[in-house]
């Protein structure tokens, strides 16, 4: 009979169980390295991991701890402009703007974008490439465009329809450079008039664009070419062929003095076994590098800060990833846990 009563007591106690959850207390230290974690597409679980390179401290999900809510999207890229980070996201499609010091959200555009990819700013105007609306029958994107954003009130002031899928953006000398990744050209527009002023012919699949120390634009093309564009003549002045590229959403960064280019390529052997390599090439070189600095099977994003190479590893897409830090000679310094699919870095 006693035990009977204990069971009854237990039954009642079920009603009384309460839960406690930890309060979000905000970031507890200053991170000089931010890891951009893409998240996986269906669960919209993108995040930003903070890392302090002098103390080695790591803090997960800085956006959440700063703002009290998650970014709740898949992050494509983060671009720094005028003390703010512009985060292009899809699922849901949006542009998040956060202060580059505090990481406090200062605004969001959540309507009018369609699979946004890259951002670039010029004065009070921002530009966002949009792949367009996904078409499940063709597995492609329809109606690509560039959204023109009024940064004073964060609204889309106009859209520029594109003939090809616009990938990366670069602002230089009052001009906007748009890489047409499904084609073989870069479109040059006048920012004041939004008129096309030139088209630069490139090898197929111009993707990521970066500016070097001499003021020339380097473009990595999905077709396996790395080209240098002279912006005075709007012409390709150097083509490095047989560059091992990934063929999709190329990852390329420059070092601090913009004299060396680092890029990531994932390629497959005859048995379709993947190898991810990080290559280095000087802006004065003219042949493709053949020996990678570091290799793995699951690299996803890269960054270079001073003499340190940061590489994000997607961990076979099983949960959180890892960031490996290497010397520029490829010796591992250390590593730490990131969020899901670390695809890029910001150093501040």
């Amino acid at each position, binding site marked *: 009979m006693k*035990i*009977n009563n204990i*069971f*009854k007591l*237990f*039954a*009642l106690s*079920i*009603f009384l*169980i309460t*839960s406690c*959850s930890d309060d979000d207390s905000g970031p507890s230290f200053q991170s000089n390295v931010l890891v951009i*974690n893409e*998240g*996986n597409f269906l*669960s*919209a*679980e993108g*995040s930003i991991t903070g890392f302090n390179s002098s103390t080695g401290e790591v803090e*997960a*999900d800085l956006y*959440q701890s700063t*703002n*009290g*809510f*998650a970014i*709740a*999207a898949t992050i494509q890229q983060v671009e720094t402009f005028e003390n703010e980070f512009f985060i292009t996201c899809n*699922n*849901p*499609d*949006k542009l998040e703007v956060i202060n580059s010091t505090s990481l406090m*959200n200062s605004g*969001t555009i*959540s*309507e009018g974008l*369609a699979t946004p990819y890259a951002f670039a700013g010029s004065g009070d105007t921002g530009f966002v490439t949009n792949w367009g*609306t996904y078409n*499940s*029958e063709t597995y492609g994107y329809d109606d690509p465009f560039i959204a023109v954003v009024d940064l004073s009130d964060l609204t889309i002031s106009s859209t520029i329809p594109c003939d090809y899928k616009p990938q990366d953006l670069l602002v230089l000398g009052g001009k906007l450079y748009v890489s047409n990744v499904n084609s073989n050209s870069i479109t040059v527009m006048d920012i004041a008039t939004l008129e096309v002023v030139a088209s630069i012919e490139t090898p197929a699949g111009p993707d990521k664009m970066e500016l070097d120390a001499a003021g020339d634009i380097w473009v990595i093309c999905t077709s396996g070419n790395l080209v240098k564009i002279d912006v005075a003549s709007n012409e390709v002045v150097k083509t490095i062929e047989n560059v091992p590229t990934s063929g999709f959403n190329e990852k390329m960064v420059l070092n601090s003095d913009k004299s060396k280019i680092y890029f990531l390529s994932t390629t*497959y052997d005859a*048995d*379709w*076994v*993947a190898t991810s390599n990080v290559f280095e090439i000087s802006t004065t070189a003219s042949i493709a590098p053949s020996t990678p600095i570091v290799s793995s099977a*699951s690299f996803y994003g890269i960054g270079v800060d001073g003499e340190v190479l940061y590489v994000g*590893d997607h*961990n*076979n*897409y*099983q*949960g*959180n*990833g*890892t960031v490996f830090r290497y010397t520029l000679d490829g010796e591992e310094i250390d590593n730490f*846990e990131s*969020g*899901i699919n670390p695809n890029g870095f910001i150093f501040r």
Partner: protein
Amino acid sequence: MRKKLYLFVALFVLTNCAYAQLDSLLLDAVVVRGIPYAKYAVGQKVVTADSSIKKQYAQNNIGDLLAATNPVYIRSYGNNMAAGISFRGTGPNHTGVFWNGLNINSRTLGQSDFSLLPVVGTDEISLQYGSSGALYGSDAIGGTVHLNNHPNWKEGLTLGLNQGLGSFGTTQTSGLINFTKGKVNFKSSGYYQHADNDFPYTIPSNGRVVKQNNASYKYYGFNQDLYIQLASNKLITFNGWFNSNYREIQPVIGNFTSKTDQEDENIRLTAAYHYNSQFAYTTFRTGFVKDYQLYDNASVVQTKQIINQLQSEKKWDKFKTTLGVNHNHIIADVDSYDKEQNEDRIDFFALSTLQLTKLTLAANLRYNLVSGYSSAFAPSLSTEYALNPNWKLFGQLSKNYRVPTLNDRYWSPGGNVDLKAETSYNTEGGLSFKKGGFSASANYYKMWVSEWIIWVPESNYWTPKNIRKVNSEGVEVLSSYDVKSTNLFINFSAGYSFNIAEPTNTISATDRSLGEQLPYTPKHNANAAINVTSKLGRLLISGRYTGERSTIGSTMLDGYFFMDATVGKRIKSNIGEFDLSLSVKNLLDAEYQSIINTATPGRYYQFNFNYSIQIKK
């Protein structure tokens, strides 16, 4: 292999026919009720939803009902959206779902989407706790869900009509005709439900309240049952279930542009012949299952299955044994496969139980063959021992398996035809107490799952591999207390479960999952319910607590309390019987997410009006 099988079947039938000629005695009547092989599931808990709970969840799916009353976690991608079950720390393809004895888990995904299983679509819903691969074959690792139809022999014609209304533009209409004349029972029913499903939710980032977009759904279906009692020892049964579901796919919070949708159609037919001869009780069952899915008007997934089962049970005084064979022929027509794929799965099983005064033992065995590649063996030993009239001890040891899904084998590119079946070793034990209206049980279980299939990006596409090892262990406590008097019936029930489910190996150099609880697998689950029925009417309050769960990215989703309450009244009159009920769902207006970034509705309402009449002839 098929030839051999049919030879075996032919032999079986002949033997039975030969003995049938000797049959002259009046034998035990054939009764169809409850879950199959229940008497061989010694020491395993089976919880069957009673009619008041079925009424309470009439406008919901079976996943919602199970989660309200059992420590299962439903991983639901929105309100009545795709929903997989997680039971005892295992994944959605480790719980077998059976409809009148046929495994209806999708052959392509290896799991059931519970949002395609409306509560109104079946007579009886039961949940069997724990592994039972020897009884039910593949998928029965965490537990099994049984949906069964049974005859209603009440003489005459019964008509029933139900009209439901609910929040977010929900309407449900269902009807039933039951006709019994002598040895024949004929039952037809149908249902239709539509919901705009535009529930309001708050966007966390800006506090704005918006209506959920792109989440409407409608479904309808029919059931047809026929039972013919040829003699007291011969019964023919026929069951059919057609279900059609159209849904827009609820996007993640803040996605206002998604227009993705999905259509599903399921046809399930089965006929069985039960014959209780002097020699043995033999059942021959044949079935046909067709699953069709069209995702976003683009991708078609269609499978057809022809299932044949033959089994015979022989009883002695204290010992009974069942021998049987099950053949499943699958034809898959899936856009993402290179070609139409055919697969044969054959199971042989031998079940036996010995019942002594205080001790019951069961030894069950199943051997599974899948065409061209794999075989699996599932034995189990279980026991129950009565210490005294109130206390019982029980325990089980078993080995179980899960056959790789058709997607695992044939997806192009990436499908891996060399996969082995997943295996799990399970043990559980516990004690139960029963006295008067009070019953309770507590048990511990542990399972070691290996060859767990994970899709990994081995090349430029993903491929499934038998690489994960997972241990899952836990404790479950259930209790129930009935108070009965002439005009009043009260039932209290409560349950609590604790589970630890962790990978025990690493599958890559950067794998961080070792020793971490599996994603979307709460460690703590508790539920409690009160059901009061009196002359004044009935009141049901059920509540549950779901503990915190991690997402794939190690974000912790907070635990939450969820409560439902229903008041109802049945009025009998000479023009029929009326039943009215009003339910408040999510009474506490809990904000929770079952999958991260997926909105769920706050407090909402459901109303049901039911009318039934019996016309005696």
